């Protein structure tokens, strides 16, 4: 990767707002705030602050990296919609990065990755060497098969660590920093625009009023 690649990464897929500016092979400036709501207002400001702290011009970006979840649907769409608008105006690619890839960045051990899912459950992905499992939903108290010697990391990973009796590690990078780094590697090969990683179908029930029988 050439040193003049510069990438803006951001993520609002959980109860946080994060942005990072990657340039010259490393993250130059970054910000992270815990946040339950208000990301739609804070994200553009935070990005401006991160760019200013690095004395960087948004017009010089090579690409944008954005977190696609899994996580909070509204939060994911806030970042993705902003990324797609910014990418269109700047004429550069926007790269969707899933949060498991962000969590796993810089780790070389076998891992149980976890992200918060609704009702005290977790989204789980297991990585053993080069093998990446499908994402499953797991609730504490149930069985979970994982490679021996695996570590766990992610949101509320202490719960997993206790339950499974395995070692817990912090993620090496904050989500936005990991996303910017990953996007810097992927943007040249990215064709699709970022879209949310939904693990549940939309909450919708078919109409409860049946149509009447038509007598002919």
């Amino acid at each position, binding site marked *: 990767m050439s040193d003049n690649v510069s990438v803006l990464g951001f993520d609002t897929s959980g109860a946080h707002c994060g942005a990072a500016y990657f340039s010259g092979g490393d993250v130059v400036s970054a910000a992270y705030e815990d946040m339950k709501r208000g990301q739609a207002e804070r*994200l553009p400001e935070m990005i401006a602050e991160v760019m200013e702290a690095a004395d960087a011009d*948004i017009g010089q970006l090579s690409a944008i990296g954005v977190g696609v979840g899994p996580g909070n649907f509204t939060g994911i769409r806030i970042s993705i919609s902003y990324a*797609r608008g910014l990418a*269109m105006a700047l004429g550069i690619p926007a790269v969707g990065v899933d949060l498991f890839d962000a969590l796993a960045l810089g780790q070389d051990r076998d891992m149980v990755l976890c992200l918060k899912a609704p009702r005290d459950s977790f989204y789980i992905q297991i990585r053993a060497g080069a093998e990446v499992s499908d994402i499953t939903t797991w609730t504490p108290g149930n069985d979970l098969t994982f490679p021996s010697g695996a570590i766990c990391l992610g949101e509320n990973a202490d719960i997993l660590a206790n339950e499974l009796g395995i070692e817990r590690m912090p993620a090496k990078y904050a989500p936005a920093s990991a996303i910017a780094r990953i996007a810097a590697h992927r943007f040249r090969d990215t064709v699709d625009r970022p879209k949310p990683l939904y693990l549940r179908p939309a909450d919708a029930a078919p109409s409860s*009023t049946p149509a*009447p*029988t038509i007598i002919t």
Partner: protein
Amino acid sequence: MKDIEIILGIESSCDDTAAAVVTADRRILSSIVADQTMLHSAFGGVVPEIAARAHAEKLDFAVEQALSEADVTLKDIHAIAVTAGPGLIGGVMSGVMLAKGLATGSGLPLIGVNHLVGHALTPRLTDDLAFPYLMLLVSGGHCQFLIVNGPDQFERLGGTIDDAPGEAFDKVARLLGLSQPGGPSIEIAAQSGNDKAFAFPRPLLNRDGMDMSFSGLKTAVLRSRDAIISEKGGISLKDQSDLAASFQSAVTDLLVEKSRRAIQVYLEQSPVQPALAVAGGVAANTLVRAGLKDLTSKMSVEFIAPPLPLCTDNAAMIAWVGHELRRIGHPGMTPLVPRPRWPLDPRRPSMLGSGKKGAKA
């Protein structure tokens, strides 16, 4: 081209994903509307999460198509106008964030626009109508009378206290086994029906003021239908047509009578060019339109009905509001924060959804 301002409009507050390019001299260079009817058809109404998912992945394509059909690029645009409410928050959020991204990347000014103002100012885009005029906004989500005094001055005379008529058309269509959207299918079924076959109520008709109610009417149609079903085990095509015609007639009577009162109140202001303008999908109904036309001609008031694609949700009207606001030096919603509720006339909040979060529209 350079001297005349051009605005890009973006609309995503319900189930239409829309983008448009409009000039300050009232030319619509493009107006893209991708509707989601198919996505929602199985659920008997617009499902907010399904709408939000579609907007998030389709809106930028709509913008690209609008720019390309208008044969302009972002460099030719002077400002971006986006619907910031009221509406389904997931869709509004996607539209506002996309617009913020576009504005940040292009350096263009961004104007947050009220969706209802879009409908209310459409007669100025289509017919260059002078203020003040009376507006009947009658759609799937809204029903209200407004006196439009200026681009940011609205006086709300009254509106529905429960369902919007468009919603009632959709629900009644479903009850009668007719296809969605309900407006056109009820209109077609009603053509062969007897509008006096069923004596449906005209809620609030004899009550003073310009408030309306459509929920009870819908329930009355359901009761009549169920009575037929329990007698015959189903409804005949004739029952279907008669129910549709009687329902449509009740809606028309309500809208026409309440319009008569609204016009009386409006005429007290002695407008120079008295006019009643309509917007919203229900304004496309032939019977409603004929009733209003007849009423206005009797009262010597001009009747303005914009073409259907500009009556229903679209982004050209949002771009147009951008022009109107810029002309009076109004920055739009500041700060720009997506709002599910945003009444036009804060002095007279709607009776609709006025819970602890305030009036909806």
